[in-house]
């Protein structure tokens, strides 16, 4: 299901929008979120009703919640795919989370979704999906690092690059396993490039960190949220609020090449909380969100 949009570098960058979705955990059922796939389905509905259709959707891992029963896990992946395909967008790209790939090293994931790391080009932006969950440890590994070096070698240092992956590539909170042990090696490979944006999931909350000249954006999830690690030492899902069932859950709209300057990476980020009643950045979203289907 993956197709690559050309291999040429130096293509002129033209403005476009894309979406980041993360952490649907299809198959999860528990007190922190008893609604299962409801938030995911709501996100799909919002994506389909955006006034400007996004060029693509990036899904940054934990598509499913794991199960020791391989058949059950496979069924969850198929259910995820069925919901995901309701999005009326030209292209959807995925990378796995540890709940998709941890139990079997990503074997089942690759059977259903294809390669767990890859790259493609779109409108002058080079997109790189990285897998930091298929090894037992939270790492990318030397094989993938070698591939990354080779993949990047044909690009000019000013090429806009978007990396999407599951775990943060820096030490956000190591004692919550919010890190990638060889993330520094990845960032060293990316260091020569001036316009790098990293999108990731795993932490179930939106977060922005600037490390060197690279912006790292953590995404909200589509099932229970985690608290701010600076305000609590305990990694426990935030309690379910039946009055606001989608509170703290959301999607991210990324506007690439704002201003239309070629060979730049003027990225603008808009966070859309699923419970929001107003969203000023996109015309029409207010009307959409005033008629929730929940």
């Amino acid at each position, binding site marked *: 299901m993956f197709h690559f949009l050309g291999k040429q570098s130096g293509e002129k960058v033209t403005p476009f929008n894309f979406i980041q979705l993360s952490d649907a955990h299809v198959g999860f059922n528990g007190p922190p979120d008893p609604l299962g796939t409801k938030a995911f389905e709501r996100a799909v509905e919002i994506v389909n009703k955006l006034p400007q259709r996004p060029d693509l959707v990036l899904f940054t891992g934990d598509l499913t*919640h*794991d*199960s*020791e029963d391989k058949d059950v896990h496979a069924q969850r992946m198929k259910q995820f795919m069925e919901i995901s395909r309701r999005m009326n967008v030209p292209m959807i790209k995925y990378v796995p989370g*540890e*709940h998709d790939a*941890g*139990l079997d090293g990503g074997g089942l994931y690759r059977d259903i979704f294809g390669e767990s790391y890859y790259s493609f080009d779109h409108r002058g932006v080079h997109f790189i999906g990285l897998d930091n969950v298929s090894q*037992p*440890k*939270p790492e990318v590994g030397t094989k993938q690092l070698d591939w990354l070096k080779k993949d990047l070698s044909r690009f000019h240092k000013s090429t806009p690059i978007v990396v999407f992956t599951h775990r943060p590539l820096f*030490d956000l909170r*190591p*004692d*919550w*396993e919010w890190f990638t*042990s060889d993330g520094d090696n990845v960032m060293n490979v990316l260091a020569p490039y001036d316009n790098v944006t990293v999108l990731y999931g795993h932490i179930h909350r939106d977060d922005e960190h600037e490390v060197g000249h690279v912006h790292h954006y953590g995404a909200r999830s589509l099932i229970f949220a985690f608290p701010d690690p600076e305000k609590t*030492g305990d*990694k426990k899902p935030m309690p379910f609020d039946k009055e606001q069932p989608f509170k703290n859950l959301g999607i991210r709209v990324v506007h690439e090449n704002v201003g239309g300057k070629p060979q730049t990476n003027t990225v603008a980020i808009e966070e859309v909380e699923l419970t929001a009643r107003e969203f000023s950045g996109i015309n029409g979203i207010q009307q959409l969100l005033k008629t929730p289907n929940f």
Partner: protein
Amino acid sequence: MKKFYALECVSGTVLLAVVLALALARPHAARADSPKVVEITAKRFEFMPNKITLKKGEPVTIRLTSADVVHGFFLRPLKIDELISPDKPTEVTVTPQTAGTFTTICDHFCGVNHGSMKMTVVVEE
């Protein structure tokens, strides 16, 4: 001849005393120098015990055993990043330099509740 014999007896007694003293003294010296040993068992999805207390500046050997699959033992503040194999125990000796309460996690994916596998390490002044 008798004098020589007496001297031999005296020197033999002294030698015996020295050997005995060393034999008695060595274990005490070894106990004083050897790090304290703390045993921790890992099994899906918990560490037992789930809390240990160490002393700042005092060496300790942590002996890690797995009761089922391979686990990790990751504690960045103490620079510990070990694998625990069910085949044989893993030992790591550290001297904590910072007091505080730290969370150790299993960072080797071990199953569906892997993310909840953690324990507390307290380092006292």
